[in-house]
C-alpha cells in the first residue's frame, strides 16, 4: 500500500526500472562522461609518449645534460623555478601543485560527506575550501606557464637564437616538447577552471538552500566525481610529464 510508495521516490525511479546499477541517472551519466574524458586525456598523454620515444634520448649523465633540438629534454632540468627564491629547485613547484590539488580533493569528499548528513554549514565550509584549492592551483599554473614561456637561456638553432617557448620553437628542445606541454597542461587547466566554476555554482546553490528544498545533496556528489577526476588526471600528468 502506501508503504511502497514512500520508499520508492520519483528520483530513484527510471522509466522502466528502479535504478539500474543502483546509481541515479545523473551519477551514472557523469561516470560515462568521465570515461570518455579519460580516453581523451589518454590520447594526449600517449601522444606525448609517442613523441618522446620517436626522438633520441640524451645519452650521458644528467649533470652533463644540455638543451638541444637533437634530443628530448629532461623535465627536471626544465622546471627548476619556485616563486620568490632564486634557487635551483627542480620539480619542487609541481610537487606543491600536486599536493594542493590532492588536498582540494579531500575537502571535496568532506563536502560530500556533510551533504549526506544534510549539514548545510559544513557543505558550505568544505565547498569554499575546495574552491580556494582550485583557484590556488590555477594561479600556480599561470605562474608556471609564464616562466616556461619567458625562458631565459637562449638556444641556438640553425644560426637563430630562440628564447623561451611558443608553438613554433622553444629553448628546451624539440618543437613538440613545448607544444605538448601547452596542450596537456592547458587542457587539464581548462578542466580545473570549469571545475572551479561548477564548484562555485554548487556553493551558491547550497547557500540559497536549493538542495535543502530538493531534499538531498546529490549535486555535490556529481560535481565531486568530476573534481576527483581532474585531480586523478593531474596525478598522471605529474608522473608521465614531469617525473619520468
Amino acid at each position, binding site marked *: 500500500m502506501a508503504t511502497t510508495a514512500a520508499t520508492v521516490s520519483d528520483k530513484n525511479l527510471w522509466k522502466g526500472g528502479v535504478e539500474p546499477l543502483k546509481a541515479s541517472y545523473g551519477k551514472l551519466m557523469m561516470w560515462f562522461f568521465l570515461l570518455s574524458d579519460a580516453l581523451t586525456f589518454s590520447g594526449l598523454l600517449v601522444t606525448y609518449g*609517442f613523441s618522446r620515444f620517436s626522438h633520441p634520448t640524451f645519452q650521458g649523465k644528467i649533470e652533463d645534460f644540455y638543451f638541444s633540438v637533437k634530443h628530448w629534454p629532461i623535465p627536471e632540468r626544465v622546471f627548476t623555478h619556485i616563486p620568490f627564491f632564486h634557487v635551483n629547485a627542480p620539480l619542487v613547484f609541481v610537487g606543491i601543485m600536486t599536493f594542493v590539488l590532492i588536498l582540494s580533493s579531500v575537502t571535496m569528499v568532506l563536502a560530500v560527506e556533510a551533504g549526506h548528513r544534510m549539514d548545510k554549514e559544513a557543505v558550505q565550509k568544505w565547498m569554499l575550501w575546495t574552491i580556494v584549492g582550485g583557484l590556488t592551483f590555477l594561479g600556480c599554473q599561470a605562474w608556471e606557464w609564464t616562466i616556461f614561456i619567458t625562458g631565459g637561456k637562449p638556444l641556438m638553432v640553425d644560426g637563430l637564437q630562440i628564447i623561451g617557448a611558443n608553438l613554433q620553437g622553444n629553448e628546451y628542445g624539440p618543437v613538440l616538447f613545448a607544444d605538448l606541454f601547452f596542450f596537456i597542461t592547458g587542457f587539464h587547466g581548462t578542466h580545473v577552471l570549469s571545475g572551479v566554476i561548477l564548484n562555485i555554482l554548487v556553493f551558491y546553490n547550497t547557500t540559497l538552500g536549493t538542495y535543502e528544498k530538493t531534499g538531498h545533496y546529490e549535486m555535490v556528489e556529481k560535481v565531486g566525481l568530476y573534481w*576527483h577526476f581532474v585531480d586523478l588526471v593531474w596525478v*598522471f600528468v*605529474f608522473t608521465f610529464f614531469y617525473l619520468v
Partner: protein
Amino acid sequence: MGHAHNDHDLSKPVQVLPPDKAKIRRILMTTLFLGLATAIEFVIAFTMEPGTPKTMIFVLLTFYKTFYIVGEFMHLRYEVKTLIWSVVLPVSFICWFITAMLAEGHSVEVLRTWASTWF
C-alpha cells in the same frame, strides 16, 4: 546512495545528522596514503638512476594512487559490480593503446636514425 526523505516537507526543520567519525577517519587515512605516495615519488625522482626500474616504480605508485582516488574518493569500490566493470573494462583498453603507440614511436626513432646514416 539512498536518500532518506524525498517528500520535500519544508514545514519540518531539516534534520542534521552528526559527523560519521569512521567515514571521516577513512578519508583522512586515504589522504595520508596519497600524500606519502607523492612524497616517495619525489624522493625517488632525485635519488635513483634513470632507467626501467625507476619508471616501473613511478607507474606502480601512480596506479596505487589511482586505486585510492577512484575507489575511495569517487566511491567506485562501493558501487555494484556491473558499474565497476563498465568503467574499468573500457579503461583497460588504453593499456594496449599505450603499448602500441610507444612501440610505434620507438620504431620511428630507429628508422630516423637509420635514414640519417644514409642521407
